[in-house]
Every structure is written in structure tokens, then in C-alpha cells.
């Protein structure tokens, strides 16, 4: 089976003035369809950077990334944006909803950037997702008027509206309490069956990482084999 996303010896270097920060160095990682992968590591280890590389939000300094068998590491910004829009959904620790838009408007926002004809009605689909997640009654609320757990559900609905192949979640429970956190995790995990979504979970908590089928551990931007 061919991987959906394939990272080959990928590095990402940032420059802070004169100093070189190797956020990710030499990571090779195949990601298969409908996989549930967790990326575990300490703070500053490069988890988020790796996730952004996988999510085509960042281009590698070195190495190659293929998406669906096609090399995307040198694609133009517009093409990468279209791929992100249609194939990748992000969920963040800080929810990252746009506060001046209502819940419903936030969920349909990705559809407005679609460059292909939509096969669904954005509002209907958004409402269906909100209903599935038990927050349809909050559709006309603004994000700062609902709870953290509810905001994260909205963010997940937004990530899912374009039927992405991959859902990337960066510490999605990091800002939630011990009751809501596991609820959100279960919700994300349920998407695999329901929408056949590949799930990549970034976390620094071992217990969270252990729920995945496959986990990788990174330290100082490198994959640490022996941990697995």
C-alpha cells in the first residue's frame, strides 16, 4: 500500500538572527490512509513544526514530501493552499476560531476558499456536523460565548467540512479540563470510522499518545526509534 503522505528525510530550519534553530531534522515518515498516528514529544521538540510540514502549511528546508504520490515540497503557494483546503483539516490547542464570525460562519469558512465546485450545501453540511457534535443550538453564537469544549467541537466541524483525508490535531485537549478532554479525544477518534479520516494527534501526554495505533516520539527535532 502506498502512503497518503510520505516524508523523506525532511528538515526544517529557522533562523533567529544568526542562530540556526533545527526545529525538525531528517525525519522520514510514511502516513497511510485511515491511520491513527500520534506524535509524542516534549515541549519544543518540534511536534508542531512536524505537523505543519505534514499539513502542507510549511515547506521543508530539506527533504521531500509527497502527497498522494505527488511531490509537493516545491509546489506554489496557491496549489498548496488548495490542497490544504480540500484534503487537510487542522485542529489546534487554542481552538483558533474567528471571534467575529458565528459558530456557523466559522464552520463554513473553508468552503469559501474552495476552488472546485462543492458537492454539498455548506450550511446544511455545517449544521449536520454541529448536530452530530451536539452543538447545533449554538450555531448562531459567537465563539467567546461558548465553552472551551464547545469551541473545540466547532473547530473540529470546521476541519471536517471539506471532507479532508487527514485531520491534524495539535494538543487538542491542552486547553480543556479532565472531563472535556477525553470527550474531545473520543469525538476525534470516532471520525475515523465515520468519515474514514486519517488522524494525526500531536501531544506531550503519553496516555493520549498511547490511544493511537501507531506512535512516534520526537526529541530535538529527530525521530527517536528506541522509544517505540
Amino acid at each position: 500500500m502506498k502512503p497518503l503522505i510520505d516524508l523523506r528525510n525532511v528538515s526544517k530550519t529557522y533562523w533567529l538572527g544568526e542562530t540556526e534553530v533545527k526545529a525538525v531534522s531528517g525525519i522520514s515518515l510514511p502516513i497511510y490512509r485511515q491511520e491513527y498516528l500520534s506524535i509524542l514529544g516534549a515541549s519544543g521538540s518540534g511536534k508542531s513544526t512536524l505537523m505543519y510540514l505534514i499539513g502542507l502549511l510549511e515547506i521543508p528546508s530539506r527533504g521531500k514530501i509527497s502527497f498522494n504520490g505527488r511531490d509537493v515540497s516545491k509546489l506554489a503557494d496557491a496549489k498548496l493552499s488548495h490542497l490544504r483546503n480540500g484534503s487537510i483539516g487542522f485542529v489546534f490547542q487554542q481552538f483558533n476560531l474567528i471571534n467575529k464570525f458565528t459558530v456557523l460562519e466559522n464552520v463554513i469558512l473553508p468552503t469559501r476558499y474552495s476552488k472546485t465546485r462543492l458537492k454539498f450545501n455548506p450550511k446544511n453540511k455545517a449544521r449536520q456536523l454541529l448536530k452530530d457534535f451536539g452543538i447545533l443550538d449554538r450555531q448562531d453564537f459567537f465563539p467567546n460565548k461558548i465553552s472551551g469544549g464547545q469551541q473545540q467541537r466547532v473547530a473540529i466541524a470546521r476541519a471536517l467540512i471539506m471532507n479532508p483525508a487527514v485531520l491534524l490535531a495539535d494538543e487538542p485537549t491542552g486547553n480543556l479540563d479532565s472531563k472535556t478532554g477525553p470527550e474531545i479525544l473520543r469525538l476525534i477518534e470516532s471520525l475515523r470510522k465515520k468519515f474514514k479520516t486519517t488522524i494525526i494527534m500531536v501531544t506531550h501526554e503519553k496516555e493520549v499518545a498511547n490511544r493511537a495505533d501507531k506512535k512516534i516520539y520526537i526529541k530535538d527535532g529527530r525521530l527517536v526509534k528506541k522509544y517505540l
Partner: protein
Amino acid sequence: MKPDTLSDIFTTAIASFKRNKIRTVLTSLGITIGVMSVVLLIGLGVGLKNYLSDQFESLGSNLVIVFPGNVFSDEGGLGGGFGPGFAGGATFDEKDYLNLKKIPQADYVVPQFFRSLPVTANGESQLGYVEGVTADAFKILNLSQAYGQAFEATDVNRKTKVAVLGFAIAEKLFSSPEKAVGKTIITGNQRLKVIGVNAKKGDREMDNIVLLPYTTTFGRLNPNKTFFTIFFGVNDEANIASVINQAEKILAKRYDEDSFSVTEQTEILSTVNQVFGIVNAILVAIGSISLLVGGIGIMNIMYATVTERTKEVGIRRAIGATRQDILSQFLSESVVLSVLGGLIGLALASLIILVIRQFFPAAINLLSVVIAFSVSTAIGVFFGVFPAKRAANLPPIEAIRYE
């Protein structure tokens, strides 16, 4: 662009304006003032030009006019000022009129006192163009009477309190113009008996005119006993130069040479056009400066907005917005901001023109509207493009990490 995207852009623009009402208003203020002044200037310029052309067109030929000020001087019409209120402008009086009357080649001489004033009759009030003249004015202005009759030289001598109304004002005051004859009107505390109504001219000024003997105005209407202009009808075109010459000599005995002008009608028209061309250019330049300042204000605020909304840009980029999408979003925001300012400017200018119209023939025309729209759009684009480019070029990761 899809309509959805367009509505998103407007929702975003309006939402961010709502959050920062004061800031939005202040930012647009420069554009508002700029557009307002440009529209006003065009309105005043066009109005005045039309007014003067109409005025002169309704006058007969071989006309020589005495004006205060030296607007129509040989240096191309830029010296001194225009009208008695301006520095150095002469104020003519009856003595000048009587002196000028002695010029043999002048068929008739008509002094003119002018004020626009409310005119009331049986409870109705209307704005009228009140003119104190001699009986010859009816000849110069080609005015015949639909009802009643004009006043005569004897009325001027006897200071009769009579008036001849324009068709429109008579109609407005008395519902039907023929009813006006014999009735009393009051203007500027002066009671006047209507003895005639002019035939319809189709000209706003002429149809709202209130003509009375200039001697009658010397009471309450014109306590200083002055004239704004004095007209001559010259018996032969060949004598025009000589009449001008004689009139200048007569007036020079009492006034400084720079404080009055004696000019042929056709010359006045071309000078008026020339002067308004220059005045308009200067005023448009003033408008342009405030537009420039307004544009810089918009640029400034858009840069602040971009910084403020860095995180939002990051989020939008993560969910698939291209650089182009971000660029159009911020660009349309600055255009909306600018056009908003422009429309307020247009509205304010229209209001002001509506008010001045009572006293002065100002006008809002299609040109003003087109200019208001296109100028403010252009400014929004020009000054919005740099901040919008900055937003579009934000690295998505840095934007999304931004707090």
C-alpha cells in the same frame, strides 16, 4: 470571485468597522472631507457657470456691463476680487448711474441692485431673486407680461411700491399667476403691490424674479443705496469700444482703476469660463490634498489592522486561503472604508448644496457622483495595496503562532 467570497469580504469588512466605529469614522474622515470639497467645488463651479451663461444668454446684444472689482482685467482675469464684498471692489451708487446715463451712444442704462430674499404673500413664503432696476430692464431682459403690466419710468421717479413677478414665483405664491395682479407681497419688510406677471421664460432665475423700481429698494431693502452692476444697451456695435472708454473715464473720477471693470458681454463670458477653470483647478488641488491625507490615513489604519489580525490571517491560510484570497480581503476592506468615506462626503456635499441652492445656483451632477465613487475607490486600492500585500505575504506558521 464567487458571490460567497464577496459576501464574506463584506461581512468581514463591516464587522471590523463595527468593532472600531470611532476609528473607522476618523479614518474615513480625510476621504470624506476630500470628496466633499471636490463635489462641492464642482457643484458650485458648474452652478455658477450655468447661472452666468443663462443670465448673459437672456440679455440682448451690444451689451456693456460695469462690474465692481477687476476680475475682468487685461492680465487674464486673475487680479483683484469679484463683487463689492471683495477687497478693492467698488460699490456703485445712483450718482454713477446718473453720470453714466450721459453717454450719448448708450440707448439705455440700467442699474441693478440684487438680493435673494424670501417673499411672502397670504401666508406663503418663497425665495425670490429681488432686483431693483429701471423700466428699461424689461427691454434688456426681453421680458413681456403674461398678466398685468411692467412698471414705467414714472414709477421709478415716484418710488412706487410696485413689483413685477416671474411666472413661477407668482404661481407658487398665488396658486394661479393671474391672481397675483393687484395683490400685496412682502419681502425684506417691504410691502409691494404686484402690477404684473412676466410670461414664462423656462429659466429658474428669471421665473422667480421680483422686479421693482430701484428707487423703491432705497428704503428697507437697500438702505446703502448701492448697485451691484450697471448695464448699458449700446445703439450700434461700432460704438461699443467708445462707450467702454467713456464709462471707464467717468468711473475713474470716483474710483480706483482696479476697483471696477467695464466689459463687453462676450468678453465677460470667456473670462468667467477662464476664471472658473483656474478657481476650480485650485480648489480641486485642495481637495486632492485632503484625499491624499485621507489615503495615508487609510494605509496607516490598514497596517494596524493587518498586525491586529495576524492570527486571523494564519487561521485563514491554514484552512486554505491563498495569498490572493488574503490580498483581496484586505484590499476590499480598504476600498469599502474609502468608498464609505467618499459616500459620506458625497452625502454631506449634497446636503450643503441643497442648503446653498436657496441662495446660489449650485448643483450636484452625475460628474460629481462618478468622481466621488471612482476617486474613493482608486484611493482605497492605491493605499490599501501595500498593507494588503503585507498580510498576504505573512508566513502562515508565524501568523498562526502569533498571539
